[in-house]
């Protein structure tokens, strides 16, 4: 039993474990204290002063960094506190570019919400000098607009502490303080892995995805283009949030209908690509095990992780599976197999991927991911961008009937849909590898040891009498820890799954943005993953190799996993990258 302490907040007595902050204690007592720079477990620095409380000390204290102590009496709501918070907010507003009407975060902005909540009457109360910053939009994934930045440092904390990347930080001092890459470099000149965790943790419109919706609209209106779309597993677990549905609502059927109504010629499913990935990846794993190949093998689905490995752990590149990621595989199949079946010139086909991910935009532009001079995937949009398109098209999303994906590459198994949660690729691969190696039917398909949101998970799996050691990491900071354990020989793994974003794709940088206040009570990663595991359970088929369209594609086209043609179309290679490109 932890040491408990008792304190009184606004007259309410509350018991909390020693070491809790006043902010946490208040939350437990059901008292809401406003926050802006605070990000649970990640950024607790008392910088914005929104959360000040009166603890009887000489001056007001920031509750997010104020330790709760025995017998403490705290007030969170006095005229002095309300006035103070409002003033602080008005000072933040004095340098904020208040173009709220056209702001990408309008109606989902923590600063805007605070103004409403704290009763700001004049956003220009402290109008004064401003610095005009140039917008950095040279990255294929992430746009940084310092004119909107409130210097909360949430992006800096997540980039350095969680992702172990640290390509941005505060520079200069006082009025000139700004969040920048060093030496006035652009994000694209740094070893940014494009994961977009900075975006989903930004309270305002200072960080957002490079918008590619215009490219998609242009493709859709071009009569000479046959436009194929594919949504990733994790998109269906979160898209509903953009339309007011509760977190964790699965909207697969509505999403398929919406994509058809937007005018795409074919709606395939990246889940099919995920099943195809498992066929190739399980085969590669079995081959590596039986032929003495490089082990542990590491998954290759997450483009943020791939760039991270290329930059920070190039010595592990031979361990990374040569498999392209699911949407790239599906893209390659659309421009070969499907083009042939449908009798369309691949040059006239455009593939659009809807991804929970900003790094996929960078991935799709990799020159090695293509065939015959055609990129496998032409445009990547995020979950948020798809939501914007649906809204722009005046589609009443919540009222849509459920639709289906188009056949040929629309069928999928439960193994595919769980790709979107950390541990999912591992579990899917184990389901198929088990049956491939043992030749027996796997009765219990659920591997619970690799599920859940722990940053590093380990499991020992019995495959036909052989114990196989596997591990799963999510968040690139955790990946580094896991690789160090593998490198030191402390652990002897056979297979490792890495996802760049904490919790996997459900919490990807392209997903709907959830406020820090909500994240204090709800774990986004858990809620969205529930939707995916629910879909898995509901599927008749839960192993990738049972997918009938997968069987057909090997029969009709690829012959067998790891075949010459499969290698040509579905596999790739990696390159060491320098930390700075100048």
């Amino acid at each position, binding site marked *: 039993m932890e040491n408990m302490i008792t304190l009184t907040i606004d007259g309410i007595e509350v018991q909390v474990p020693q070491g809790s902050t006043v902010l946490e204690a208040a939350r437990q007592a059901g008292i809401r204290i406003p926050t802006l720079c605070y990000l649970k477990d990640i950024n607790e620095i008392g910088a914005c002063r929104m959360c000040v409380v009166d603890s009887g000390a000489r001056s007001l204290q920031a509750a997010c960094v104020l330790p709760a102590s025995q017998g403490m009496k705290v007030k969170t709501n006095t005229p002095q506190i309300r006035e103070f918070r409002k003033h602080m907010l008005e000072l933040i507003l004095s340098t904020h570019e208040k173009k709220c009407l056209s702001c990408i975060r309008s109606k989902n902005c923590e600063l805007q919400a605070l103004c409403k909540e704290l009763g700001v009457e004049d956003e220009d109360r402290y109008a004064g000098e401003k610095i005009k910053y140039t917008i950095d939009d040279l990255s294929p994934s992430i746009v940084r607009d310092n004119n909107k930045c409130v210097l909360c440092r949430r992006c800096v904390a997540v980039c350095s502490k969680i992702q172990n990347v640290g390509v941005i*930080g*505060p520079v200069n001092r006082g009025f000139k303080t700004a969040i920048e890459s060093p030496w006035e470099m652009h994000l694209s000149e740094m070893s940014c892995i494009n994961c977009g965790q900075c975006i989903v943790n930004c309270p305002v419109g200072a960080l957002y995805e490079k918008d590619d919706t215009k490219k998609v609209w242009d493709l859709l209106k071009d009569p000479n283009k046959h436009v194929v779309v594919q949504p990733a597993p994790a998109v269906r677990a979160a898209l509903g949030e953009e339309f007011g549905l509760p977190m964790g609502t699965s909207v697969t059927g509505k999403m398929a209908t919406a994509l058809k109504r937007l005018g795409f010629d074919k709606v395939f499913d990246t889940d099919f690509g995920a099943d195809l990935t498992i066929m190739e990846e399980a085969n590669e794993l079995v081959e590596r095990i039986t032929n003495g190949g490089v082990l542990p093998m590491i998954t290759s689905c997450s483009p943020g992780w791939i760039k991270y490995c290329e930059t920070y752990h190039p010595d592990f590149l031979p361990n990374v599976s040569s498999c392209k990621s699911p949407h790239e595989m599906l893209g390659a199949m659309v421009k070969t197999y499907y083009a042939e079946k449908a009798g369309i010139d691949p040059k006239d086909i455009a593939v659009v991927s809807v991804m929970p991910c900003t790094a996929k935009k960078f991935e799709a532009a990799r020159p090695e991911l293509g065939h015959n001079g055609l990129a496998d995937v032409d445009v990547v949009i995020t979950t948020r961008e798809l939501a914007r398109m649906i809204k722009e098209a005046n589609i009443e999303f919540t009222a849509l009937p459920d639709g289906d994906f188009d056949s040929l590459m629309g069928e999928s198994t439960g193994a595919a849909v769980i790709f979107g949660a950390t541990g999912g690729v591992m579990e899917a691969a184990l389901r198929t590898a088990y049956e491939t190696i043992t030749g027996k039917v796997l009765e219990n398909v659920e591997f619970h040891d690799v599920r859940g949101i722990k940053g590093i998970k380990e499991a020992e799996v019995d495959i036909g009498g052989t114990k196989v050691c596997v591990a799963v990491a999510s968040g690139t900071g955790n990946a580094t820890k896991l690789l160090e354990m593998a490198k030191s020989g402390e652990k002897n793994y056979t297979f490792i799954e890495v996802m760049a974003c904490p919790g996997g794709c459900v919490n990807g940088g392209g997903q709907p943005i959830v406020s820090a206040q909500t994240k204090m009570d709800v774990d986004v990663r858990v809620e969205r993953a529930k939707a995916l595991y629910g879909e898995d359970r509901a599927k008749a088929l839960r192993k990738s190799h049972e997918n009938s369209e997968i069987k057909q594609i090997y029969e009709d086209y690829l012959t067998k996993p790891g075949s010459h043609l499969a290698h040509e179309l579905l596999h790739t290679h990696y390159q060491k990258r320098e930390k700075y490109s100048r």
Partner: protein
Amino acid sequence: MDDERAKFAELEKLIADHKDQPGALMPVLQGAQAIFGCVSEDVQKVIAEGLGVTLAEVYGVATFYAQFSLHPKGKYLVNVCLGTACYVKGSQSILDKLCKLLNVPVGGTTPDGLFTVEATRCLGACGLAPVMMINGRVYGRLTPDAVPAIIDEYRNGAGENA
């Protein structure tokens, strides 16, 4: 070139001496500034790699503290006092005159590498206000008109011995 290599060797030793100490970045940056006269991009990259911190962190600290210079400073460091006494006695016009004369902004260095112009807080010579200091030598009771002659002395190499 050899000189440069020796400086980097010295930096590597400095990093090795401080590595794994908490708060190593400040003393290493200070040492680097002493060795090179500034903490350039290349120097900062070596420090970041050596200490296992990000370049963003090194650059953040280097730009936060006024004691660090990102670019090499001139042979002569011209500091104009903007402390209260000097300021009310018109030191801003001295600073403006210098910037105009040398065609550099405050904090800038002339292309020939001779002069760096900086503004400083009180130098403790308020009785002589307005004051400027060139490489430690104090010039008091200045007027903007007196500035060109002083600068010329340094240009001609005479100032150092005066």
